[in-house]
């Protein structure tokens, strides 16, 4: 193997799948081979059987739906407010000077540490879940969008001005389209983080959702169910990531050109 040499598309797919196979094989050997106690780690077959029972008899599909709606809802709320604010901060230095120090501080406040407080304020209903995700993603989004917008190539800005652009059209016709692919990439990244916040919120105070199922299963020592829940989260993450990437390629073909 030579460093930095690309591999063919076919080889990429085969190698990518191969590691999944390897992972499951190692797990199967460790559990079915009797190297690990069943109490602590279920084997892949038990996991699948437990998962099927969950889906067919315990309405786990509803839990998955609840968790997904919380992530998407909280994330959309955060994005709808954070993207315009990030644009404003990146484009106008006075707004940046005003808000940047506070946002930088706020983004280090761990969203999960707010959960007890949010339960006091908003109970253990849906609003509390949305707020956890909102706090976890909003400040990160604002800062990352502001940086991307602030890094707009100055020579493109100058070219636009010499072509007669006004301050307003500069924003809509240069700054925004220039930053759009990177903003989409930021959204993809932060959506991944939002998944970890929702599960924590569900572990602590909830009557539905994937996290709730996992904490319930712990009481029953049902490791198969717990692992099934975790794997479902991973699969949903994988699929959304793939969809996001495909959408970005379609929306911004010029950015993918190299």
């Amino acid at each position: 193997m030579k460093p930095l040499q690309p591999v063919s598309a076919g080889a990429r797919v085969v190698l990518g799948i191969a590691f999944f196979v390897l992972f499951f094989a190692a797990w199967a050997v460790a559990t079915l081979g009797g190297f690990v106690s069943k109490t602590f780690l279920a084997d892949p077959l038990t996991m699948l059987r437990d998962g099927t029972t969950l889906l067919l008899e315990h309405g786990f599909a509803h839990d998955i739906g609840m968790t997904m709606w919380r992530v998407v809802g909280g994330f959309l709320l955060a994005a709808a407010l954070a993207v315009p604010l990030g644009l404003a901060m990146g484009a106008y230095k006075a707004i940046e000077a005003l808000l940047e120090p506070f946002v930088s501080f706020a983004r280090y406040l761990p969203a999960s540490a707010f959960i007890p407080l949010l339960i006091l304020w908003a109970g253990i209903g849906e609003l509390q879940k949305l707020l956890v995700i909102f706090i976890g993603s909003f400040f990160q989004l604002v800062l990352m969008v502001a940086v991307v917008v602030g890094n707009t190539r100055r020579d493109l800005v100058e070219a636009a001005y010499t072509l007669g652009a006004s301050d307003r059209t500069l924003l809509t016709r240069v700054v925004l389209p220039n930053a759009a692919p990177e903003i989409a990439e930021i959204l993809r990244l932060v959506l991944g983080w939002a998944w970890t916040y929702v599960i924590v919120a569900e572990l602590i105070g909830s009557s539905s959702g994937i996290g709730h199922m996992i904490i319930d299963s712990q009481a029953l020592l049902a490791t198969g169910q717990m692992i099934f829940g975790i794997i479902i989260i991973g699969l949903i993450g994988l699929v959304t990531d793939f969809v996001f990437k495909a959408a970005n390629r379609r929306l911004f073909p010029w950015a993918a050109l190299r």
Partner: protein
Amino acid sequence: MATLSIREVSRTFPGGRGRAPTQALSACSLDVADNDFITILGPSGCGKSTLLRIVAGLDVASSGTVLLDGAPVAGPGADRGMVFQSYTLFPWLTVRENICFGLREQAVPAARQAEIAAHFIAQVGLRGFEDHFPKMLSGGMQQRTALARALANDPKVLLMDEPFGALDHQTRELMQELLLDIWETHRKTVLFVTHDIDEAIFMANRVVVMSARPGRIKHEETIGFAHPRDYRIKTSTDFARHKARLTDEIRVETQRAALAG
């Protein structure tokens, strides 16, 4: 009639953190008549780009004024088109959309935009590339698009800041001929900054030589070759004479700049 008048324009960049302010440009005056093609020649760092940026309105003079048709320049505008040394096409727009950028800004009807774009695309030899994104084009093609984009706005003055500086020698010569050809058709007023002496003589009616920093205009030379010009004039004795004189002028300045560090 577009006349450009640069009057006693100087530029000093403020120092900071204990560094002394740098004077990039000492008072420069230059009158550019309608249809003039002026090249500004100078050693690197002499402030020739700064002068051009002040005319464009992208930089502000510390003293003096720039008048376009008698009105002082305050900020950039579509009446002074500019082609930059770096590739400044908007990467998210196709060749055609890039060329229409300024027209859309003026709310020119779409049909008219397409007409103007087609005209300039043909003129810079990019037919068949209308729907390409800039990244799919070579450097020379990108600069031809940038030229078409500036011309589509029909500016009074065309400002060019070493536009062919990043291109290889052969492409650069072809671009010079292309630009000259376009100038011969449109007779735009052009202010062209370069450090390439051949390029300066080949295209200009007048070559202006700037001194080392702080830049000032130290020499002007009228270039009398008739139009249309052919690339073969580059080997004529008149050309060689201009070149010898300008080489001497520049050489002294480059040495001074080197000594000043």
